């Protein structure tokens, strides 16, 4: 490997930059990357780009980060001509910000220039511009909700309530089988093996039954102004649900849809909610249910609603915008999932009728309609849901944290 000079070393440095920027790049991949570059040869900058791309990128959303990192790290194109024996990236050496840092990812900047953050105000400004381009300033109050403002008593109460709650776990049959002495089907393989034990004289029947498993769960939570009194509580609820079982995807929406699953996977509820509050920019703004549902149907439903998912929709159904497409989007959502539950805080009023245009459009497309307006009702919801499902012989109740 002597003829490759400092190449492996630089690939290692590049990998470290990627790792610091958040790509899951381990030493194993670095070794593969070095071997890949040796195998592919460095014909052109493009080849090196795609060679390393093949090794380091394993998700579509990593491509942008990789792209930026690559162009910043392997900046000097002439490097590649000198490459074979010596590859010296000029990373971090120049005192100015990278020229093509147009929209360089913040994480990447941190990873590349850990100590130089303060020296690149230009980029921050651009980032702010970029943000502004995405917003609907008229309807959306761009503020980051501070969870610190939650009183200690409130937190305690919420935690206690959630800890005491039981989550109904709906089990559905899968097509997989496991050994079960009271199962309905004969397990031929185990039967033959058992019969050989007696020399084939007796054939003791072994049985098997279907494996039951809970379906994926998707939570869509409204965090708009009209829901602001509840959203904090619901986030605790969602955090508890996300950590209680696998295959949970959580989204919040106000004027736009945000996938917060990754943040809520944090075991620590404070860290999780803090991350959520940083990532979501439309707290207590307007509602665009129809638009959010459309976005979900278009970009996410096909990725998270596979395998018969259940949907929990938490909203009051008050849409600030016109609701002309809401019925259509709800129908599509309803048709793509196994079961849809609408949890509505307004339902606590006994005389509640779905009068709002939005609510009227949602109602025909839900399987269940329940109240959710305080901690108690969340707890009630759990028990009542499990009761319902037990009646339908579809579910069992499991205590929180009892499942893996």
């Amino acid at each position, binding site marked *: 490997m002597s003829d490759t000079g400092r190449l492996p070393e630089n690939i290692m440095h590049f990998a470290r930059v990627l790792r610091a920027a958040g790509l*899951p790049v381990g030493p*194993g*991949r670095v070794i*593969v990357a070095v*071997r*890949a570059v040796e*195998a*592919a*040869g460095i*014909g052109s900058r*493009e*080849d090196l780009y*795609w*060679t390393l*791309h*093949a*090794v380091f*990128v*394993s*998700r*579509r959303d990593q*491509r942008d980060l990789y792209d930026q990192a690559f162009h910043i790290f392997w900046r000097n194109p002439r490097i590649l001509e000198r490459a074979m024996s010596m590859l010296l990236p000029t990373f971090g050496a120049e005192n100015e910000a990278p020229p093509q840092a147009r929209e360089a990812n913040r994480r990447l900047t941190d990873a590349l220039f850990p100590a130089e953050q303060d020296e690149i105000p230009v980029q921050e400004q651009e980032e702010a511009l970029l943000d502004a381009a995405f917003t609907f300033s008229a309807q959306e109050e761009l503020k980051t909700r501070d969870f610190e403002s939650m009183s200690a008593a409130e937190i305690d109460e919420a935690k206690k309530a959630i800890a005491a709650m039981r989550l109904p776990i709906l089990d559905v049959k*899968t*097509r*997989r*089988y496991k050994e079960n002495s009271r199962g309905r089907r004969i397990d*031929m*393989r185990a039967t*033959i*093996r058992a*019969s*050989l*034990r007696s*020399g*084939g*004289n007796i*054939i003791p029947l072994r049985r098997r039954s279907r494996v039951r498993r809970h379906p*994926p769960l998707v939570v869509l939570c409204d965090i708009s102004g009209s829901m602001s009194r509840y959203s904090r509580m619901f986030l605790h609820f969602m955090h508890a649900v996300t950590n209680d079982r696998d295959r949970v995807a959580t989204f919040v929406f106000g004027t736009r849809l945000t996938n917060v699953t990754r943040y809520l996977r944090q075991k620590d509820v404070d860290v999780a909610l803090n991350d959520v509050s940083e990532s979501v920019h439309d707290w207590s703004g307007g509602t665009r249910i129809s638009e959010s549902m459309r976005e979900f*149907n*278009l970009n996410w439903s*096909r*990725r*998270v609603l*596979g*395998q018969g998912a259940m949907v929990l929709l938490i909203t009051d159904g008050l849409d600030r915008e016109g609701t002309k497409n809401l019925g*259509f989007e709800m129908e599509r959502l309803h048709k793509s999932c196994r079961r849809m539950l609408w949890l509505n805080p307004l339902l606590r009023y006994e005389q509640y009728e779905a009068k709002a245009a939005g609510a009227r459009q949602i109602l025909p497309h839900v399987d269940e309609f329940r109240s959710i307006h305080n901690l108690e009702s969340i707890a009630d919801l759990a028990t009542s849901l499990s009761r319902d499902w037990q009646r339908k012989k579809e579910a069992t109740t499991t205590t929180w944290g009892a499942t893996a």
Partner: protein
Amino acid sequence: MRDFPTSIDATLTLLGDGNYVADRALATTLFLSLKLGRPLFLEGDAGVGKTEIANVLSQTLGRRLVRLQCYEGLDVASAVYEWNYPAQMIEIRLAEAEGVKDRAKLGSDIFSERFLIKRPLLQALEPDEAGPPVLLIDELDRTDEPFEAYLLELLADFQVTIPEFETIKAAEPPIVIITSNRTREIHDALKRRCHYHWIGYPDAARELSILTLRVPGAGDRLSREIVGFVQSLREQDLFKLPGISETIDWASALVQLDKLALDPQTVNDTLGVLLKYQDDIAKIQGSEAAKLLDQVNAELAAAR
């Protein structure tokens, strides 16, 4: 049989020989997969030519294609191996009738290769005269996590342990192509062991060369119009954008209808070949289609 390509350019040529027009990114990833013996993990929307790569590889390299179509609940019995129980039962009865008393011998008789039904994953490990086969694991996202975990074990060592029989190990690992439509995320542990590539929609130039190769019957003008129209459709706000396979289907359909150029009526009548959702069709049909067609024709006229 043909040897593995020795460079990225050779890989491009190889795919080209199989009538597959790939971009350089895909060729690089494929070349590395072949060279380093790692599985190739292809993700992308339906109809962009993921499965086709396996077909083309098996064809051009002269290897056998072993295909495993994934579905929910796919288990070892239908993916790897299964014992032929009825035959085993008869064998036990025969042994009984003949008065065989040796249990160990009976056991080894019953669990021998004679009674083993080989499913795709096991077939892929078998030696082949033409060299190790191409193993296509299609639409992995349709199956569940337990199967993915099993696959992890298989892809690590290319060996299968059958408890009653023996461990079967591939002398040479097969060429593995895994595809996913992304109806759920595949676990990172599996992706880590593969070279990943996202296949997107092709640009106009590449789509045109694909069309010329795949539907030679379509004239130059028709092909250009089709590509222009499909490309502009992909800029529309649709639930499901047409993939390359839809483009090819559409072109074949138009050739069957003896069309030499697109006109609004034909587009409306055959839109179901391109778009597969009623509301997408409703959105495009009629004036929108005519508008797009006018744009395409104007652009083509300008380019000429």
